[in-house]
């Protein structure tokens, strides 16, 4: 026969009340905090996951802020480049206008004045600043203007003085984009018109002009030797019959071909037109000039000087017109490349922004699923635990009131 002691009756009742109280308090805390994980021990794996998800969310939010910053700065740069593009197109129009043979000196001076204004406008745009006063095209030297005007310089007087380092912004785990471009790459690294000159001649007369810039450029790039300057010298030799010209490289001695020739009429070799009056055995030396790089301001400045020069020869004026048109076209090409580069980065930043947003949503959902409690379930649970406690309390008084001594 099993027996039960008085202590057991009390202990069991009290223990069940205590246990019920703990469960009520846990259920209450879940309802109050809305958290399924109050302590990491409630769900150790979930707790670690929550920490990582929170960290990722913070990082994603930071990436979104970075993205806004990147977009702002790229859009500002795009606007500046558009203004420069408009100004250059206007200058190009004026340059074509200046080629009109009917223009008098006064008209050229007037065009020159407008070109100067455009030059100053572009120079000003080169030195655009962002909201914090940083020069956006100066690379990492953003505290000083990207371009300076140095009239005493022997080379270009509109000079880039920043560097090529561009600050970067991280917009996702793996995507880091440049926030802008260096003026050196967009504006400064632009070829001026390539040219060649007759350097020596035994002929009666020898002049050269570039009649076909396209084929000359191809010849130039195929043959220009930056390391050995002597290899940039070429020689035309008239044959004994006086009806053919052999072309050779002075430095290497390589023969470039033999072409028919009539003295007194133009001889065209790879876009270079020689006006040549030569007898058999005459030689004409010409060389490829070292390529120059000029920015818009420099090109326009050169042109404005020419427009202001009343005593310029027609051929020099022609050369200057070619210089400005080709210089501006080369610059516009570089500008177009930069603009499409910006567009590309803006596209990437937009798509990263969208995918980051998706990640934020899915991470938040995942964190909610792990960490937060189903409110309805939690409240139902609290009610259940509360009634269990009430039942324990009720039975306590019942059970402990029973005593045989009451009947003695």
């Amino acid at each position, binding site marked *: 026969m*099993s*027996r*039960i*002691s*008085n*202590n*057991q009756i009390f202990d069991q009742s009290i*223990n069940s009340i205590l246990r019920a109280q703990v469960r009520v308090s846990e259920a209450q805390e879940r309802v109050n905090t809305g958290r399924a994980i*109050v*302590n*990491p*021990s*409630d*769900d*150790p794996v979930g*707790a*670690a*996951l929550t*920490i*990582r998800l*929170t*960290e990722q969310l*913070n*990082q994603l*939010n*930071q990436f979104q*802020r*970075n993205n806004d*910053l990147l977009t702002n700065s790229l859009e500002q740069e795009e606007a500046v480049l558009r203004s420069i593009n408009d100004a250059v197109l206007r200058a190009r129009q004026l340059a074509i206008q200046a080629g009109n043979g009917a223009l008098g000196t006064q008209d050229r001076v007037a065009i020159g004045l407008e070109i100067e204004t455009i030059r100053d406008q572009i120079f000003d745009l080169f030195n655009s600043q962002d909201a*914090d006063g940083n020069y956006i095209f*100066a*690379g*990492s*030297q*953003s*505290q*000083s203007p990207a371009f300076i005007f140095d009239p005493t310089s022997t080379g270009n007087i509109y000079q880039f003085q920043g*560097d*090529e*380092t561009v*600050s*970067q*912004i*991280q917009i996702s*785990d793996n995507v*880091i984009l440049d926030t802008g471009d260096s003026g*050196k790459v967009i504006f*400064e*690294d632009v070829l001026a018109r390539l040219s060649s000159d007759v350097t020596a001649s035994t002929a009666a007369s020898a002049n050269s002009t570039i009649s076909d810039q396209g084929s000359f450029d191809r010849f130039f*790039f195929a043959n*220009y*030797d*930056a*390391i050995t300057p002597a290899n940039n010298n070429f020689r035309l030799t008239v044959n004994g019959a006086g009806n053919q010209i052999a072309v050779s490289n002075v430095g290497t001695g390589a023969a470039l071909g033999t072409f028919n020739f009539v003295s007194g009429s133009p001889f065209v070799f790879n876009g270079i037109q020689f006006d040549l009056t030569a007898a058999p055995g005459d030689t004409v030396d010409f060389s490829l000039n070292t*390529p120059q*790089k000029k920015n818009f301001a420099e090109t326009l400045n050169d042109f404005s000087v020419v427009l202001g020069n009343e005593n310029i020869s027609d051929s020099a004026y022609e050369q200057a017109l070619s210089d400005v048109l080709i210089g501006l076209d080369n610059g516009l090409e570089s500008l177009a490349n930069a603009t499409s580069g910006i567009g590309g980065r803006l596209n990437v930043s937009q798509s990263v922004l969208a995918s980051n947003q998706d990640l934020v949503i899915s991470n938040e959902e995942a964190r909610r699923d792990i960490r937060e409690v189903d409110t309805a379930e939690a409240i139902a649970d609290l009610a259940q635990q509360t009634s269990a406690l009430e039942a324990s309390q009720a039975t306590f008084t019942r059970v402990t009131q029973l*005593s*045989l*001594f009451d009947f*003695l």
Partner: protein
Amino acid sequence: MTIRTDLFNIGSSGLRAANAQLNSASNNIANVNTEGYSRERNTLVSSQIGGVVIQGVERIVDRFAIAQLRRDNSAVEEASAFTDNASRIDDILANEANSVAESLSRFYGALQTSVDEPTNIAARDLVLGQADAVLGQINTLESFLANRQSDLNQEIDSIVQEANGLIQNIADLNLQIQVLSNTAGADSPTALLDARDQAILDLSGIVGISTRPGENSTVQVDLSSGQSLVLQDGTFNFFEISGDPDLNFTSLSLAVPDSSFTVPVGDEADVGGQLGGLFRFRNEVLSETQRDLGLIALTFADALNSQNNLGLDFDGQIGPDIFSIDDFQGLNYAANADLNSTLIGRIADGESDRVTSRDYRVTVDNVVAGGPTIDVTIEAINPDGSPVLDSSGNAISQTLTGLNATSGVFNATFDGIEIDFASGTSYTAGDQFLLQPSRSAGSRIDLALTRPEDLAYASPIRVESNIANLGDASISGSTVTNTSIGAIADSSAFTAAAGIQGPGASPTGGGGVGAPVEVFFTAADSFELRDAAGTVVVAVNGATNLSNVIAQGAATAGYPAQFLPPNRTDYPGYDISIQGVPRAGDSFTIAFNVDPVTGVPGVEDNRNGQQLAALETDDVVRRSNSDGFLATGDPASSPSAQSLVGVSELYSIIVSDVGQQTARSQVVRDAAEVLQQQSRNRVDETSGVNLDEEAANLIRFQQAYSATARVISTAQALFDSILNATG
């Protein structure tokens, strides 16, 4: 037929018996709430000569139920002590305000924002503020843990005293019970037996014990691991606590009273009961957490320091350390010849990814005064002093010979640690020191930067393409791996005067070439590395790609041997990659990132800043403790990628580890409580007082008393009737 005694005698024996039974019942009722009380019952036998004999008072106990209760009591107390303490750490880690991961997140958020706008000084200032907050956060947790440790020591101290009191109590009771049981005719000493059982039960809550019945109702008490606590002859052993070498990391031993003889208990975490639970909590949770948290602080600080050192600050100087990391002292073992000997350790700069959460025991093997050199053996040990085992189960230990024993000279050892024999050669062979590189390392770290300008967001090199270049190649990237300045083997090409070593200043000496600072193309796939004077350092022909061109040059015959290991481990310390097709004559130059004309550094440059920000997710903490030693300062022995985790990741691992241990111990405790409840029920069923039963007994014994009283009155009546008949 036996001759019976008379009615009077029978009646009076009955009265005595009923009286004794009433006494027992009353005693049971009176002791209904006395802890450890076992109900009593009188043993009655009928006498051969008539009447009843009271043989004695008997405690109703179930010896096996009591033994079971003791075992379950030990288990419950052990699990409760562990759970109570672990859940306090669990609680503090649960609090988001205390989350190191959150503060790391805020720090890197501020860093990103600041890196986005490198010229914004206010944003840089915020980075320093957040860096301080991270340290503060780690320090808060570390001091909480340190307080827990000192509280724990006090708790262990008072529990040990309580245990010693109980041991003495049991021994005393043993003696008294022995005396009483030897006294003929004395009643069974039920109260003393109850008191001894209660004392043993209390002791079983403190440590796991087993008992053996001895002669003369004595009992022998042993630790469950075997050592004796109370012996039959009345002698006993005391617990003693001591800390060697770490006074705060106590260990348990048994001492024989009035003698200097002590026996270590062995594995404290295995003694069971409350003490075992506390020691186990200390070894498995507290110590681990302290070390892991220290590891977070160390790697966080060191990784940022190293990366900042690779950059150029707002003032155009190589970035200084962001945090200062103090050296740590080795702890003397008590057996050392001179307890004033000091051994100093530190973490080698930039090698925090080799540091583990292990402790190390350094044993001095041999001292050569003339050298002065010292040979040592270094063992990896756990917080409790046991050896760390590698994956094949062997202890990890290695001997180093011929270390420089000059005070102030740090010797490379293992796992990113360098040691300085601060006491020169005044060590004795056999001296031992305990190194705890990661324990509470956060308290050794301070924010060293006060000027936000010193955050090095820029790269120390500027790479420029020559404006006369005609090819379409451009620079696709630059890396900086070393900026240290000086004449030692790990120095770079950077000079103290904010420049790069030119001819004469470089390791090739006078007349030699300088560090490569120009890449000059002689053909689309061939280039020359040139120094600042334009002298060719090495020519590379037929390159298949143009990435890391300086490394390609270094791998080409003709590259100066003075630039290569072992003369220079990482020279010049930078490299560049080029993409696109260059033309012969194109060149790219590398210069110190300061404008040559104005002297202004590249302040808008944030290449190094991106690297700093990337540390948020970089894996820089070595997590595997069972790996072998990695030599300090040896680039050839670097930690494997799979053994590394990120800094915040380690924090989440800590949280989940502590959570798991707490959860597991809660389950163990709940299960043990159920078992304890069952065995307590078993004991109570047998020995507990039931008032209803006693009430019934009272009536029963009262009736017996009345009945025997009637026997006497009947005898009286009989006697009277005889008197009357004769009268």
